[in-house]
């Protein structure tokens, strides 16, 4: 029995080497060196499980959905709707509350338009935070311009956490929506979303969470969160680009006007006027990204096969190790030192431009992102031109972090000569 228990324990241990073999791109060479891919917050790599599912779709299923009585069309429709079910189950949503979009950006734009059109009027307020990605800033700016509404911003601390005291002060009878990141893409901060939602709901204000950086790393339960809108992108969770999800509570969705219009979203079209489908179809005009939708569900299956707990544990290990080793480098300052963080380490080296560091790291085969990471207001606040950002996935290794640390030291040697 002891042996059995032991074997079970071993099989449960995270086998990163076998997992890496499932991601063909991880074995490519860059500038003659093994690729170290630390740009996962920008986009994740794809396992064979996903790549093969794309092939299989075009080889055996490809057809348009929701029309035609022919075999392939009904097969494609079945798989498309089955994918919606898988995704709904994954985030604990009702199936009619899951809308396919092009990605997080389109999901936020959809809410900004379709919710804003109905619920936001002159003098109303929308609350965002200082740590938002541009895609959770600009759609609200445009809505506010259109409706003569006011954008309010929750300030952040030096360590990269939301000023909850200030947030409480911003909530008022004029607030029509709170839209904040679940996890910051440039700082890694995991925001206290339960508290954010509870405070807003106490005043009957709905909350949208930009979950693009959260979904890769943790279990999301929209019912437990009691969140009103939740957005995320497929390509950050091992699925293709061009597909994403908007979750919206039915009570909001059914009151919202269409975002785009055309085929698929109509009930009846007369030349004088048309009637629209109920959600979610009301918000899915035109032929959707059928393959992307189906394969997004495949990618979610893949993540669940590994296990979200196992993923979180491995990524925490990488984050802790990288934070420790990078912090030990003389002159290196980690930007974003919140207590709760996703596996993102952004940093700057005293006297060096992040661009220079990024160019040297690239020559060493290390893929990091440098720049403002589409969060210019954060960089302005901290008075820096940008950061070097290493972001990890469960397929990364401790050895790769050692390569990064050595690379950073080499960059410092070269640039500080």
């Amino acid at each position, binding site marked *: 029995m002891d042996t059995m228990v032991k074997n079970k324990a071993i099989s449960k241990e995270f086998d990163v080497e076998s997992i890496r073999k499932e991601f063909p791109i991880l074995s490519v060479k860059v500038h003659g060196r093994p690729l170290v891919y630390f740009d996962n917050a920008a986009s994740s790599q794809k396992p064979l499980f996903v790549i093969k599912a794309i092939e299989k779709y075009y080889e055996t299923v490809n057809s348009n959905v929701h029309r035609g009585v022919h075999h392939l069309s009904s097969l494609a429709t079945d798989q498309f709707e089955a994918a919606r079910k898988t995704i709904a189950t994954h985030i604990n949503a009702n199936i009619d509350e899951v809308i396919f979009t092009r990605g997080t950006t389109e999901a936020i734009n959809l809410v900004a338009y379709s919710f804003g059109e109905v619920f936001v009027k002159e003098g109303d307020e929308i609350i965002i935070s200082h740590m938002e990605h541009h895609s959770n800033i600009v759609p609200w700016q445009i809505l506010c311009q259109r409706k003569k509404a006011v954008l309010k911003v929750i300030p952040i601390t030096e360590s990269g956490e939301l000023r909850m005291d200030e947030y409480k002060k911003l909530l008022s009878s004029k607030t029509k929506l709170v839209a904040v990141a679940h996890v910051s893409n440039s700082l890694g901060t995991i925001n206290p979303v339960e508290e954010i939602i509870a405070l807003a709901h106490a005043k009957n204000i709905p909350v949208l969470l930009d979950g693009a950086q959260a979904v890769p790393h943790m279990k999301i339960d929209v019912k437990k969160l009691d969140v009103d809108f939740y957005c995320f992108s497929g390509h950050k969770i091992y699925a293709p680009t061009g597909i994403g999800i908007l979750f919206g509570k039915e009570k909001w969705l059914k009151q919202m006007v269409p975002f785009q219009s055309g085929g698929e979203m109509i009930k009846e079209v007369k030349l004088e006027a048309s009637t629209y489908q109920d959600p979610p179809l009301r918000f899915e005009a035109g032929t959707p990204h059928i393959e992307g939708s189906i394969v997004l569900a495949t990618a979610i299956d893949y993540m669940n096969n590994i296990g979200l707990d196992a993923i979180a544990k491995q990524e925490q290990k990488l984050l802790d190790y990288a934070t420790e080793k990078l912090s030990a480098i003389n002159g290196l300052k980690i930007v974003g030192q919140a207590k709760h963080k996703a596996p993102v380490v952004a940093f700057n080296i005293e006297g060096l431009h992040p*661009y220079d560091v990024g160019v040297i790291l690239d*020559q060493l085969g290390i893929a990091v992102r440098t720049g403002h990471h589409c969060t210019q207001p954060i960089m302005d606040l901290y008075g820096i031109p940008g950061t070097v950002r290493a972001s990890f996935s469960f397929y990364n290794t401790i050895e790769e972090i050692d390569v990064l640390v050595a690379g950073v030291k080499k960059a410092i040697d070269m640039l500080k000569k």
Partner: protein
Amino acid sequence: MRIEEAEAELVGEFELFDDWMARYEYIIDLGKDVPLIDEKFKDEAHTIKGCQSKVWLHSEVRDGYIYYTADSDAMITKGLVAMVVRVLSGHTPEEILSADMNFINKIGLHEHLSPTRSNGLMAMIKQIKLDALAYREIAK
């Protein structure tokens, strides 16, 4: 020295290096020799906007020849800028307009020219050409 000669000279210098580190160290060194732009010109009008690193460029015409001063907040970008300035400074608008800048490819630094690399080098060359065009029109 004609532009092609200055280009060939620079390409020749880079041929001495056989690994990327030495090449980049040399680029950084070249940056230290760039004729620096006067601080008073480091304003919006003289800024060439790349996405990540800033480049400042000033040009003036003396006796029909254009001379450049420049700077950047990133060292590698500054080195690349220095190379462009070294090759083009002191030439007529006509010569600058017909320069193909192929030396960057020959040195193997073409990746820095891609607009997606966002270091401002591409935008700087475009600005130099536009300035040269303007100077040529004024001279007419």
